[in-house]
């Protein structure tokens, strides 16, 4: 038997480039821990003079993520969200500050995207998830029925802590924002414990950089590049990046599905892009990543321009890139120098202007 697992694993993690050498300060130690929650692996890597202290802080942060899973889970029947989904059609329901904040934030992005970001598409998502598992694709009638249940405007928030659904069959799923919210709460706990250098990662899709690693200006993160050509990177320092991409197309030609549903037509989104967005909080980047993938580059750039200290990049499978920023810089491979007011990007060998220069 012969195999080369390391190469295979490395291939799955592409793009890989070595980080510039810069030895960490000798008085800090790296502590890295993982925790399974919300259907993925959370990871925290923290530098601190006391590994035991860092370990305790990380465990406290993980405990907070686990607590939030009990609040936000769409799978656990006794989660606070599941209880809300069962009862809010019938009467107003008082909820915890966390659930209220997540839904309040979600509605903000729903309005910002004119409904493209919508946490009420859970019935549609469930239909298409079944198709992803190999069950038959949903019928038009099934889709129509599920679409009738959806609509963010049917959620009523009654401050400070009460929610009511104005639809008899609405269910909400905060999967497109909940992990980001959990990352932000974990970051709060790390900071409260005096951890000033850490990377918090929710299954690769939402990553927050607390401070910077020792001896470096920021956390360097490579962004998803389906073309494997442009290798976009960003330096995180007290901000977050999130990435969204539709489920890859089938290799064997069987019917495609997808986990990101377009609320406009109730069907899986068709997009050639992977989208990464940098924002000040992981809640924002998580919600915006889905939003910007759904609306595409043209409208997406307009949305990003309304947000301070944000940047986004759309990368297609053939290496086309589109970028926009109101602060953070996303760099591509080979982009050694930045000309004032202009970033150069390569598309099929042709030099094109990025969105930034249009601002």
């Amino acid at each position: 038997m012969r195999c080369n697992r390391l190469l295979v694993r490395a291939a799955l993690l592409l793009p890989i480039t070595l980080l510039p050498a810069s030895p960490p300060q000798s008085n800090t130690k790296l502590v890295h821990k993982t925790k399974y929650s919300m259907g993925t692996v959370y990871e925290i890597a923290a530098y601190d003079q006391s590994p035991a202290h860092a370990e305790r802080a990380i465990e406290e942060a993980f405990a907070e993520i686990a607590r939030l899973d009990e609040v936000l889970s769409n799978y656990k029947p006794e989660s606070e969200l599941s209880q809300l989904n069962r009862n809010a059609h019938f009467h107003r329901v008082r909820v915890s500050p966390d659930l209220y904040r997540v839904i309040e934030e979600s509605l903000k992005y729903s309005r910002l995207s004119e409904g493209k970001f919508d946490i009420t598409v859970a019935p549609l998502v469930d239909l298409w998830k079944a198709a992803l598992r190999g069950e038959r694709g949903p019928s038009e009638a099934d889709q129509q029925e599920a679409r009738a249940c959806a609509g963010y405007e049917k959620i009523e928030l009654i401050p400070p802590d009460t929610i009511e659904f104005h639809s008899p069959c609405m269910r909400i799923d905060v999967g497109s924002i909940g992990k980001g919210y959990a990352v932000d709460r974990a970051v709060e706990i790390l900071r409260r414990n005096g951890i000033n250098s850490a990377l918090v990662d929710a299954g690769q899709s939402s990553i927050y950089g607390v401070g910077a690693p020792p001896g470096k200006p920021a956390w360097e993160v490579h962004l998803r590049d389906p073309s494997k050509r442009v290798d976009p990177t960003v330096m995180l320092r007290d901000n977050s990046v999130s990435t969204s991409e539709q489920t890859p197309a089938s290799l064997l030609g069987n019917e495609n599905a997808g986990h990101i549903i377009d609320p406009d037509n109730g069907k899986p989104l068709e997009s050639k892009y992977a989208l990464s967005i940098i924002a000040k909080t992981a809640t924002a980047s998580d919600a915006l990543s889905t939003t910007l993938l759904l609306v595409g580059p043209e409208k997406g750039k307009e949305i990003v321009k309304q947000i301070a200290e944000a940047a986004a990049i759309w990368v297609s499978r053939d290496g086309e890139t589109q970028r926009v920023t109101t602060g953070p810089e996303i760099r591509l491979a080979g982009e050694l120098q930045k000309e004032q007011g202009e970033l150069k990007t390569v598309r099929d060998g042709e030099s094109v202007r990025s969105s930034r220069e249009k601002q």
Partner: protein
Amino acid sequence: MRMLRRVGIVVLVMAASAAGLPAKIYIQWTQSSMPAPRVLGVSNLVIPWSDEAQSLLANAKKQGYRVYWEATLAQSQAVAEASANSGVAGLMLQGSTAEETQLEEAASKLRVKYPKLKIMVLSGAGKQPEMRGWLVFQRDGILQVSSPTSQPWLDQNLSMVRYERAFERGQAPLYSFSWDVSDPLIKENGPNPGSYALAVAEAGAFHADLVLQLHEAQQKGLATGDPQTLEDWARVRRTISFYERGDGEKEAAAVAVLADDYDTCYEEINLMARHNIPFQVFESAEVKGQDLAGFSVVIAFAALGSELTKQIQAFAQQGGTAVLTNLPGNYPWDSDSGGKKTDHAVTYTVGKGRVIELGEQVSDPETFAQDIRRLMVKQQVPVSLWNSLTTLVAEYPGNKPGEASVELVNYDEEPTDVQVQVRGNFVSARYENPERGCCQELKLSHVDGFTDFVVPNVVSGGRVHLSTAGNQKPEARPTRSGE
């Protein structure tokens, strides 16, 4: 394919295994002193060949252990000669994966020359079972790559075990692995009991034999009777004891994989195992007439000769789905119709079924595995898990009709509840595990010919006994501990 398919009765395929008996755990020992077998919980020790091997052997035999020597290819002849009259139980030949063919040849020759000596080949392809994160630590920093949300990455040995089962003749899949000691604490103190328990549970659940490497600190702690080490080891010992028993001999499968070379299919079957796709590997030259009957999908990674082409065609004509991966050729179905072309594949309708020719190497094993999952006919899938992304499963139909068992392995360090769906209408499900013993009755529900239940609080692993005949105590299981 059998006529039974035509009348809608699905035959669960019993994966032919060289040895379907429960796992046998060997402990690799390197320290001069050792505890009694009852402390360790095993009676089989593996001692790497060295200058001290003879004295270790004497010591171990005095304690009552059955001892196997572990030798490299270069050492094999000399160690076999030394073994002949030394009272060792056997010899394990180990080497790199590249040496495996030579190891097999050497083992065959030695078996002829020393018929009383048990000669085994120890696979070097094992890996430490664990749930991993995605951060990659490098000497000068951390590499992080953003992506859409990823499922937990499980380093598991199930795919390797299934592959070995097809190719290793005369012995159960036997493997070992080295612990990752990059963490300074683990380097000093050794893996934690949970890691050892997971390794044992994995081998046990998948009916493979494992040479468990025991860290020096734990060897010394056990040999000297250190209370903390003994307390920690008690969990591992319970797990070893639990997996000395097991139900069924042949794992149920819905997908047949035809392969000749691990390299050509490694990552595909790795992802299929990780996604709980029940498959059986066949060496392509060994596929016989009815071997493919009852499978839902056949995947060919190996070139098809004329005989195998006929079998694939017959399989598809009876309603099956065959997938050919990057195997260009002139096949009989090519001329039947133009085929339906997509970006990567052409699908030919063949009788009641189809043949899908993927015209390139698998570029994305994850998507490929998801595709195979979608291609399986639901009624032919023996077992599925829901919302249990850290757990792998294997189902073993019982020796009596109406009985089956389900083995679960949880790769997360924390216990998890596992939602299981098993094909068949069972009326009793009794759960046992190393921590709480036997048995907890599980609540069942039935949907469309499947039985659903939730297994609570799976730590490293556990076993569910299913029966269509109501509550039955698990019978005494076969054991290999007394070999």
